[in-house]
């Protein structure tokens, strides 16, 4: 199990750091439809939450690719920890005989 965990985690981390800056920047399906059908601006008003890394861009890092890499790495680490943590908290409790 351990080897697989490390491999998959490694792939996730490497993909976040090295592949995410080169992902397509074209609008995704919903954004495209919103643009074409004229309701995109409805989603561009003030958002309810002010996020620290909006749109996967670290404020203060000028290089966009570097910014995306770091954002990706931060995200991968955080969700991994949360996933592990949730699993640890929710696992089936063995009955005590």
């Amino acid at each position: 199990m351990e080897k697989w965990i490390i491999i998959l985690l490694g792939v996730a981390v490497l993909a976040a750091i090295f592949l995410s800056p080169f992902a397509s920047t074209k609008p995704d399906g919903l954004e495209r439809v919103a643009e074409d059908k004229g309701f995109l601006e409805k989603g561009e008003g003030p958002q309810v939450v002010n996020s620290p890394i909006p749109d996967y861009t670290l404020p203060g890092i000028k290089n966009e690719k570097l910014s995306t890499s770091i954002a990706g790495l931060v995200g991968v680490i955080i969700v991994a920890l949360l996933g592990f943590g949730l699993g640890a908290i929710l696992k089936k409790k063995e009955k005590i005989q």
Partner: protein
Amino acid sequence: MHIPDGFLNARTWVTMDVVAGLSVAYAIKKTKMSLAERQIPLMGVMAAFIFAAQMLNFPIAGGTSGHLIGGVMAAVLLGPWAATLVMSTIFIVQCLLFQDGGLTALGANIFNMGIIGTVLGYYVYRGVGISFGSKKGLLWGVGIASWLSVVLAATFCSIELAFSGTVPLRVALPAMAGLHALIGVGEAIITIGVISLILRARPDLLQRYV
């Protein structure tokens, strides 16, 4: 397909928040009853892997991109309920940390891209797999469930937009379903690829349905 704040009216996003909230509560309950110790690392790893994969947009026709959603992938490895929690965690982090998806729209996003894939997708995978038996049946089930999860996500998204008065259904649905029928092929290919690798090396990691 992350819906930002502003696309949905209050009645719609409140409804979806309630639906998602109840589903996640149920998923927590079911997970507590069945999550094995050895699956704990798998939850962290799937969260990481799917989060990273969702960042990797690939171009499809006409100046548009798609990306993996990952609900079926998670469900095949973790079962529908633990997978729902993994997907929900991803969407919550994306919303709060990265402003990817609105806060009011979180319920809708969790439902469309999480629950449809993890729950409905899991049972489609299971149904196809049981009907065909064999490894081939399993992979067909994975592919069909993956594709369906994306198209249905787009469909529910269109319905939510229509109920909100943002865009009429007859306008949104063909556009969304059409694009996502293409994106769904990507989802199917990627998910089949990953699952068949795991099937070859560690078949015990897959959720067995027989």
